[in-house]
C-alpha cells in the first residue's frame, strides 16, 4: 500500500485520523531501523565530505613555508591513512565505501599537489586523466554508485579539457557526440549486464547526461552547416534511441519512454524554428510542442494501463 492508496481510501471512507496516521506510519513513513541507518550514513558522509574538502582547501592554500617534500609526504600519508580505513573490516560496507570515495578524491589532491610544485597547471587535461586512471581499480573493486559517478564525471571532464587544450579542431557537434557515445555506452552496459545491482538514480543520471549531450549536439548541428559528423551523430542517436525505447517497452520503464521522446521533440522544434520563418512559425512550434507532448503522455498512460493489467 502506498501513500496514493491511503489518500484515495480516506477520501471515500470513514477512516479516522488516528487510523490514517497508523496506516501512514506502518506502510509509508520510514521506520526506526531506516532512521538509524540513514543517520549513520548521513553523519559519516558529512564527516568524510567536510574533512576531505578541508584537506583540498589546505593544499589549495599552497603554504609557501611548507617544503615540497613535506607537502607531497603529507598528502600521501593522508591518502594512505584513508585507504587503510576503507579496508578496516569492523565497519559495514557502506561506511567503508564512503571512506573509499573520500580517498578517491584525495588521489586528485595528490596529483594537484604534484602539479602545484612542478607547475603543470591545475586544470590541465592530463591531471584529470591521471586522476581517472589511478582510481580505476578502486572504482571497479568498490563498485559503489557515488564512486562510479565521480569516475564518470572525471572521464567527461578529461574529454572536455582535452578538446579545449589539445584538440582545438574538434567541433562542438563532435564533442557532444563523443560524450554522448561514452555515456550511452555506460548506460547500455549497465542495462545489459548489471541492472539489478545498480541503483536507479545512478543509471538515470548517466542516461540523462547522454540524452542531454545528444540533444545539444543535434540542436547545434541543425543550426550549423551540415557536416559528416552531424550525420554520424544522427545515426548513432537514432540507433541508441531505438534501443532505449525498445528497452523501455521490454522492461516497462517509463523513464526511457518519456525522456527520449522529449529529447526528440526538442530536436524537431529546433528544426522547425530553423526551417520556417515569420511569426506564424512560433505559433506552429507552440502547437507542435503541446500536441506532441500530449501524444507522448497519452501513449505512456495507455502503456502503464496495459502493464498494470498484465501484472
Amino acid at each position, binding site marked *: 500500500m502506498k501513500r496514493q492508496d491511503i489518500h*484515495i481510501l480516506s477520501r471515500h471512507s470513514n477512516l479516522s485520523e488516528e487510523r490514517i496516521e497508523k496506516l501512514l506510519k506502518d506502510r509509508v513513513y520510514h521506520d526506526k531501523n531506516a532512521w538509524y541507518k540513514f543517520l549513520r550514513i548521513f553523519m559519516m558522509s558529512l564527516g568524510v565530505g567536510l574533512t576531505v574538502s578541508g584537506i583540498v582547501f589546505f593544499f589549495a592554500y599552497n603554504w609557501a613555508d611548507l617544503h615540497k617534500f613535506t607537502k607531497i609526504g603529507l598528502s600521501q600519508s593522508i591518502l594512505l591513512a584513508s585507504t587503510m580505513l576503507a579496508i578496516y573490516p569492523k565497519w559495514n560496507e557502506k561506511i567503508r565505501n564512503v571512506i573509499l570515495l573520500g580517498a578517491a578524491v584525495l588521489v586528485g589532491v595528490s596529483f594537484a599537489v604534484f602539479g602545484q610544485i612542478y607547475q603543470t597547471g591545475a586544470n590541465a587535461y592530463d591531471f584529470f586523466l591521471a586522476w581517472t586512471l589511478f582510481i580505476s581499480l578502486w572504482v571497479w573493486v568498490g563498485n559503489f554508485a557515488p564512486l562510479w559517478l565521480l569516475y564518470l564525471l572525471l572521464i567527461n571532464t578529461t574529454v572536455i579539457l582535452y578538446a579545449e587544450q589539445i584538440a582545438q579542431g574538434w567541433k562542438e557537434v563532435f564533442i557532444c557526440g563523443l560524450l554522448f557515445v561514452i555515456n550511452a555506452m555506460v548506460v547500455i552496459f549497465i542495462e545489459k549486464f548489471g541492472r539489478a545491482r545498480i541503483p536507479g538514480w545512478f543509471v538515470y543520471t548517466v542516461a540523462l547526461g547522454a540524452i542531454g549531450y545528444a540533444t545539444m549536439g543535434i540542436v547545434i548541428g541543425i543550426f550549423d552547416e551540415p557536416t559528416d559528423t552531424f550525420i554520424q551523430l544522427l545515426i548513432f542517436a537514432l540507433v541508441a534511441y531505438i534501443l532505449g525505447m525498445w528497452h523501455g517497452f521490454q522492461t516497462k520503464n517509463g523513464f526511457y519512454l518519456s525522456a527520449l521522446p522529449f529529447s526528440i521533440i526538442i530536436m524537431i522544434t529546433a528544426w522547425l524554428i530553423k526551417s520556417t520563418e515569420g511569426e506564424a512559425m512560433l505559433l506552429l512550434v507552440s502547437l507542435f510542442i*503541446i500536441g506532441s507532448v500530449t501524444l507522448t503522455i497519452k501513449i505512456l498512460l495507455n502503456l502503464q494501463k496495459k502493464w498494470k493489467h498484465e501484472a
Partner: protein
Amino acid sequence: MKLREDIQAMIQIIPPPDEGSWIFDEESILYAYQKDDDHQSLSVKILSVFGGLMGSLAFLGFLFIAGLYNSGASLLFFGILFIAAAIWLHKKYNKIIMDTLSVAFFIIGFLQVGFGCLQLDLTVDFVCFVCIIVVLVSLTFVQNYMLSFVSVLIIHGSILTLVLSHEAYEFLHLYDVALAGSLMYLSFQEAKIIASKKLLSKLYNPLKTGLLFSFLSVLTLLSKRGFFAVSSEYIWFSSIALIAMICYFIHRLLIFLELRNNKSRIVIYLLTLLALLPTVWSPAITGALLVILLSFMVHHRTGFALGIVFFIYFIALYYYDLDITLLTKSILLCTTGLFFVALYLYTAQKMKTNEEV
C-alpha cells in the same frame, strides 16, 4: 489504475475500527483510481510541466513577433479567456492527457494578464495582486494536480516580484520561515489534513511540492552573498527560526525513536546546536537540512533528492563566499568534518544497541 479485485484486497488489509463499522464507497474508490491525476509517475508530471512551459513560451514569442502585445485591453481579455479555457478543459474532460494543454493555457493566460495590465500602465503591485487573486479564485474551481502546482508557483512568483520590486529584502526572512513552517505543518499533520476531507486535503500533494520548490528558491536567493543585495542584517532571524525548527524536529524524532534517557537527550540537543552553530550566517544550509529530514520522515523521494542536492550546493557556496583565507577555511572544514566522524563513532555503538532491541 487499480482493478476492483486490487481494491478489495487492499481494503481487506486494513483492520476494522475499535468502534462502529468500517464504511467505504467502493464505486467512488474505483472511479477515483480511474481518473486519478494526483499520483501520476514523475515522468508524466515533468513532461506536462515542461511541455506546457515550452509551448507557452513559444506562444509568447509569437505574440511579441506578431505585435499583438501592443493592445493592453485585448491582452487582458485573451488572458482571462485562456485561464477560463484551462479551467474549462479540466472540468469538461478531466483527463491527464489534457494536462499539458491546460497548463500551457493557464501559463499563457497569466502571462497575457500580466503584460496586459502593464500595457495599461497599471503598477507591478497591482499586477501581482491580480495574479494572486485570479489564482486563488481558479483554485476553488479546480484542484487538479498540475494546475494547483503551477498555481502555487504563480503565487510564489508574485510574492517574490513584490519583494524584489520594492527592494524589501528583509521580508524574505519572514517569508522563508513561513514557507518552512508550512512545509513542517503539512509533513507532521498529513493524517489530520487528509482526514478533514476539506479543500486542503485535495490540494495536499501539489501544495506540498509547490511549497518545497518555493522554499528552495528563497533559500537560493538567501544563500548567495550580494545576490539581489539581500541584507545580512536580519539573517539571524531566518537562522534562529530554522534552527529552532530543526530542534523541534529532533524533539519529535527522539519521541519516535523512543529514546527516553534524559542525559542522552540533552547531549543530542547540545550536539545538534553545536553542529548547527556555524550555519548561523547561512540559513540556507539549515533550511536544506530541514527539507532532507522532513522528506526522509514522510518518505517523499523528490523532496529528499532535491534536499541533498541543495544542501551540498549551499555548503559549497557558503565556504566559497566566506571572507577568510583558505587555511582558515581548511581548519574550519576539517574540524566540522572530524566532529561528524566523531559523532558517528560515538553514536554508532549506541544506535546499534537500540536497533537490535
